[in-house]
């Protein structure tokens, strides 16, 4: 059924959409420009005035990923992100279950203690960790960096999963206990399998936080375990900065995040706003 639309409303619709488009453009433009620069001939990336029409080439990508071994830094990033996400998920889901479905004295303040780890400035942790890891000889290893990234991934996972577990219907837990399930059996056989979205949100966020991390990675990793952000930053450190290769690196680092955004937007928004809305 069509309803008559007043011309004033139509103009407003137009203006609202125009502004929204402009706002989105402002947030997306830097990325689009990097993507374009990454497939430009290297000499044209720093041309003045900027070149808008060019012959696309994959030379920059090839130099970055193959010649400069960018792929190996990508793999390092993936190993560290996956390791830290897995460690956080295993310890975090167990702790979140304890903090969500049991009552004991000091439960809520303990849960808040976990959240307060989020306030730690990384610089406070990184200096001692650097010295401790050096003594334990786990500096420059994947394991050291995984532990370092767990300092922020684990509290986040616990806080997020605790919220998810608290929303889980109490009746199901009662029913399963009546049916002879132990509390740990309930956790393992019922709660975890039914908490897919919560586990997915925490895993996605742990991976992204770890993927993006720079300060720990720059201090605790060596040439062999260096992560992609540290490698990307090093491209512009030399006397002759590799702007075109950096453009390729920027695009490469955004691709996984972009894929997650497209396929898991619902989880992303839940994770991004969690502390602010449900906190």
């Amino acid at each position, binding site marked *: 059924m069509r309803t008559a639309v007043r011309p004033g409303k139509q103009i407003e619709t137009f203006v609202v959409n125009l502004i929204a488009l402009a706002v989105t453009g402002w947030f997306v433009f830097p990325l689009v420009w990097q993507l374009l620069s990454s497939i430009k001939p290297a000499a044209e990336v720093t041309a003045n005035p900027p070149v808008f029409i060019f012959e696309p080439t994959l030379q920059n990508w090839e130099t970055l990923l193959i010649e400069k071994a960018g792929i190996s830094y990508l793999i390092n990033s993936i190993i560290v992100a996956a390791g830290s996400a897995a460690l956080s998920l295993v310890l975090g889901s167990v702790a979140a279950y304890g903090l969500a479905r049991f009552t004991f004295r000091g439960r809520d303040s303990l849960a808040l203690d976990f959240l307060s780890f989020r306030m730690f400035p990384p*610089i406070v942790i990184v200096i001692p960790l650097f010295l401790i890891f050096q003594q334990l000889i786990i500096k420059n290893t994947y394991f050291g960096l995984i532990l370092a990234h767990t300092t922020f991934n684990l509290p986040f996972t616990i806080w997020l999963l605790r919220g998810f577990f608290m929303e889980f219907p109490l009746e199901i837990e009662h029913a399963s206990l009546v049916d002879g399930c132990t509390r740990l059996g309930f956790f393992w056989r019922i709660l975890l399998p039914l908490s897919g979205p919560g586990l997915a949100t925490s895993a996605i966020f742990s991976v992204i936080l770890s993927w993006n991390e720079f300060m720990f990675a720059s201090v605790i990793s060596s040439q062999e375990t260096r992560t992609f952000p540290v490698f990307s930053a090093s491209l512009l450190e030399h006397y002759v900065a590799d702007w075109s290769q950096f453009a390729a690196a920027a695009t490469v680092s955004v691709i996984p995040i972009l894929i997650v955004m497209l396929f898991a937007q619902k989880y992303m928004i839940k994770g991004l706003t969690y502390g602010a809305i449900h906190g």
Partner: protein
Amino acid sequence: MNSSFKRFFSKRLGVLLAVPAFALLMAISIYPLIYCAVLSVQDWNFLKAYIPPSFVGIANYLNLFLDPIFANSLQVSMVFTFMAVSIELALGIAVGVLFSNERLKFGKILRSLMLLPMVMTPVIIGLTWKTLLNQKWGIVNYFLSQVGIQSVQWYTSPTEALPTMVLIDVWQWTPFVALVVFATLLSLPREPFEAAAIDGASRLQVFRHVTLPMLRGGIALAVLIRLIDALREFDKIYVLTRGGPGHATDVLSIFGYRTAFFNGYVSYASAISFVLFVVIIVLCTVLLTRLLAKK
């Protein structure tokens, strides 16, 4: 023995489940924090590790108090945080309200595109803006030259560098405030808006007296999170200016990092970091108590 053992466990199962996570965080967060506090009352340079650390009491903190570079860093951090968060708050509310407009076409796609800056790697953000804002060939200065503004020194001039860092932070984090505003708006009950409409309130009145008060809780927490993160800021500024030119963008984290890992003066760097930690704790406590008191 066996049954009392079992009873001990089943009674305390809730706490016990949290023990492994807590123990790990004790080892990798609390212990380093204490280590940092201990280092801050010593005198030790790890580049001269052959000289053993010596206890100096509060000497590092007294030196900080007299150190003009520390005073500058404290000021730069405060100015950066205050400017960035207040602009993000104002723009974020505007964008959040805009994106909740029912007349928006392709709202879902536009919203997810808008979220990209806040999930991007901060190092990449900093260096991407270094590219865009290059004085000689950056695209931004090219566009500006078309309207008659010639070669702005975005990050190479001591007066413009800090506002440029604020601009980049605003680009990165305005979507966060917008997202919180948007998500809170969606969860609001409709009745107050209908009541206001029946009472003949203008749109501006509805926004001022109905929408804003209901947004306050969500916004306050978003601002708190932003304040903590802006005070800790390191990545973007470090890769873009290293705290320069001069000390124009030398936030506390960069000053601490440089002192520890370039000068090796870890004890002094620990004191710097510990001050930053205390600033954040005090700020959080004050804001959270005020926030909870209002509720």
